[in-house]
């Protein structure tokens, strides 16, 4: 059995990641399709005359969601700037000897290293995925959303207060200060713990599975999804009245989406889902999808149950699918904002989509985290170990996604 050695999906992912890394380090001639990408041609139609969106797609370039501040109102990079950024990013992510002091809590984040688990792609032409507002950045939060974010941050900092992360004034403790263990460790968090970023994210506690991030719980897949270093291969298959998208994303956190092409109304407003409720219609060559009915557990950049998406899928040519989404939530942002992304078609033959969201099936990490926390508590109770409140297992900083949280090895896209 030649494939038996690939027993863990982690290994399979590692090979994919290694292949992805090559695209960063190997010089590439612009305009030439790399191996695995489909040949060029006009946008095809289905036998029933609709634009044909079918295929396995991926983002061929890394583009930051928000424009780095230093590029201000500059919408596109020059080819020279892209090459320089590729060199700078490649040098950071391909360096496999970086350590944040062996044995330190920050060193743990680096274990999930780019060389083994993640892949980075060449820098794209755009300086941000966001095309509206014009400055390429998310609009300001509403006072209500800012309050939510502050409440989460205060709670996070309370749980980090007695750790080395705060003692050493590391970036993970930004906004907080070192002190004795907080009684808030015994309180429920002010909002549901969801993905990272603006929404809040991880807290330094492992009382139960809900304390850990959605990623650690194997339910991180979110809508919209612009891909990332952990891989992204949506596969579209369509019939006259339905679009199926299987999102192979986040290393085993993939999911199945069904988009009905219908003028039926949305689900009743009391029915809420993680990925909302999609309704699509064709407008010329563009599929327009309206998504509402998100659950309060979902978290896209701080937006929860009031998230409203208007997605547009348009096949520009045989090889290119343009995805544009307008993101709206008057309880979170002062104005709607719009992201656009070009996806490149992959050769069907290579079947580069893994319909096996099996993160959960192999989630030894979750019981290990919880058992570890119980062992620490027991050791402390028996005066054989430190106060668990002084230990850091989330939000400690270090290398995440291949980049450091500060200094020269931080992600140039967000420096």
């Amino acid at each position, binding site marked *: 059995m030649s*494939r*038996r050695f*690939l*027993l863990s*999906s982690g290994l*399979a992912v590692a*090979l994919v990641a290694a292949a992805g890394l090559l695209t960063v380090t190997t010089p590439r001639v612009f305009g030439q399709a790399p191996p695995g990408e489909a040949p060029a041609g006009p946008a095809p139609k*289905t*036998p*029933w005359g609709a634009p044909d969106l*079918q295929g396995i797609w991926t983002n061929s370039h890394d583009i930051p969601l928000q424009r780095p501040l230093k590029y201000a109102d500059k919408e596109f990079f020059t080819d020279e700037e892209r090459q320089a950024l590729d060199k700078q990013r490649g040098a950071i992510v391909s360096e496999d000897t970086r350590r944040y002091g062996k044995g330190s809590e920050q060193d743990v984040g680096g274990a999930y290293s780019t060389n083994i688990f993640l892949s980075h792609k060449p820098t794209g032409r755009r300086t941000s995925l966001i095309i509206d507002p014009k400055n390429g950045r998310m609009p300001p939060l509403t006072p209500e959303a800012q309050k939510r974010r502050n409440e989460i941050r205060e709670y996070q900092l309370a749980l980090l207060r007695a750790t080395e992360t705060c003692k050493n004034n590391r970036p993970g403790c930004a906004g907080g200060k070192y002190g004795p263990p907080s009684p808030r460790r015994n309180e429920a968090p002010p909002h549901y713990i969801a993905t990272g970023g603006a929404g809040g994210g991880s807290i330094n506690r*492992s*009382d*139960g*599975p*809900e304390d850990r991030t959605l990623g650690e*719980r*194997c*339910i991180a897949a979110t809508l919209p999804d612009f891909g990332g270093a952990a891989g992204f291969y949506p*596969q579209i*298959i*369509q*019939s*006259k*009245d*339905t*679009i*199926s998208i*299987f999102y192979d994303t986040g290393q085993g956190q993939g*999911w*199945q989406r*069904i988009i*009905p092409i219908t003028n*039926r109304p949305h689900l009743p407003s009391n029915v809420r*889902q*993680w*990925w909302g409720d999609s309704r699509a219609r064709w407008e010329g060559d563009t599929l327009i999808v309206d998504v509402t009915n998100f659950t309060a557990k979902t978290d896209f950049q701080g937006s929860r149950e009031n998230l409203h998406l208007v997605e547009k899928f348009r096949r520009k040519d045989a090889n290119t699918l343009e995805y544009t989404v307008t993101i709206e939530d008057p309880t979170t942002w002062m104005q709607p904002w719009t992201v656009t992304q070009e996806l490149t078609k992959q050769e*069907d*033959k*290579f*079947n580069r989509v*893994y*319909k*096996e*969201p*099996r993160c*959960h*099936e192999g989630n030894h990490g*979750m*019981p290990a985290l*919880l*058992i570890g*926390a*119980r062992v620490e*508590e027991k050791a402390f109770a028996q005066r054989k170990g430190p106060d668990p409140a002084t230990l850091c297992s989330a939000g400690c900083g270090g290398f995440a996604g291949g980049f450091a949280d500060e200094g020269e090895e931080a992600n140039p896209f967000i420096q």
Partner: protein
Amino acid sequence: MMKASTIIVAILSAVVGALGMLAVSCGGPAPGGGTTSGVVAGPAVPRTADGKPDFSGIWQALNEAHWDLEAHEARPGMVTQEGVYPYEYARVPAAPVVALGAAGGVPGSVGVVDGDGKIPYKPEALKVKQENGANWIDRDPELKCYLPGIPRAMYMPFPFQIVQGGAKVHMAFPFSSTGRTIHLDEVEGPPDYTYMGHSVGKWDGDTLVTTVTEFNGKNWFDRAGNYHSEQLKLTERFTPIHRDAIQYEVTLEDPNVFERPWKISMPLYRRLEPNAQLMEYRCIEFVEEFLYGGLRKKPLVKRWENETFIIDITRKVPEGEKLYEWYRR
């Protein structure tokens, strides 16, 4: 124009006709599968531009196969234990389902296995199957929200959706938010053995015939402990028997577990509600208490003994809700 009521009668009679065919196919293996030669009754089967049957739509099996593929009588509980009398036929519901009353039982079924209705296990494999059944709560991957595998996903008690896109026929399953693609074109296989298998299809007249391989051997067929190894090879046949019904047949081969190939068959029915749609069943979060509850700092269940949770059933019936009081209101 037919009146609406006439149309409904027409559909019903056609579906009854389909059920009749199931009864025929269950009565004994018919030559050639017993369905491909059947004349399609009722409204015309939808077809694609190239004349093939168009299976696109929302479908669901309506049977007890998800409980047990084999013929079985009704059971008083999903989990049972020895009752007051020590007879195997007098078992009573066990603790995990006592509070569910009649909703916690298992419906009986004539089964979906062709021929004598029995799965032809090898003797040692039959022992494993029986142990599986006895340890259902601990062993069934469904309870852990693991990927359901094929054919199990096809007859779980959820609707599923077929999106037929030419060279690919895709099936979307709510349970565990997963899907499978049947490739009618040439593609490379998966890089590793899989839960959901690798499906390759071709048309045989109006029948879509698929071969499914590359299983990792971690799935079951049902809640009765019926199982297979990574050697499982499926040959599925999807045949339209009505506009709103597909005859689904599977030949199962697995030399590690079975004496010989065997077959299951059942109709899949179209969900006719005009507003039918797949709903999320993101069960990973539903099973966290089941899987990790014993590792909480403050367990929700009263008492854990290692991985065993002890449930003290102290259900207090509220005033006015006691047996018979409810009727008198």
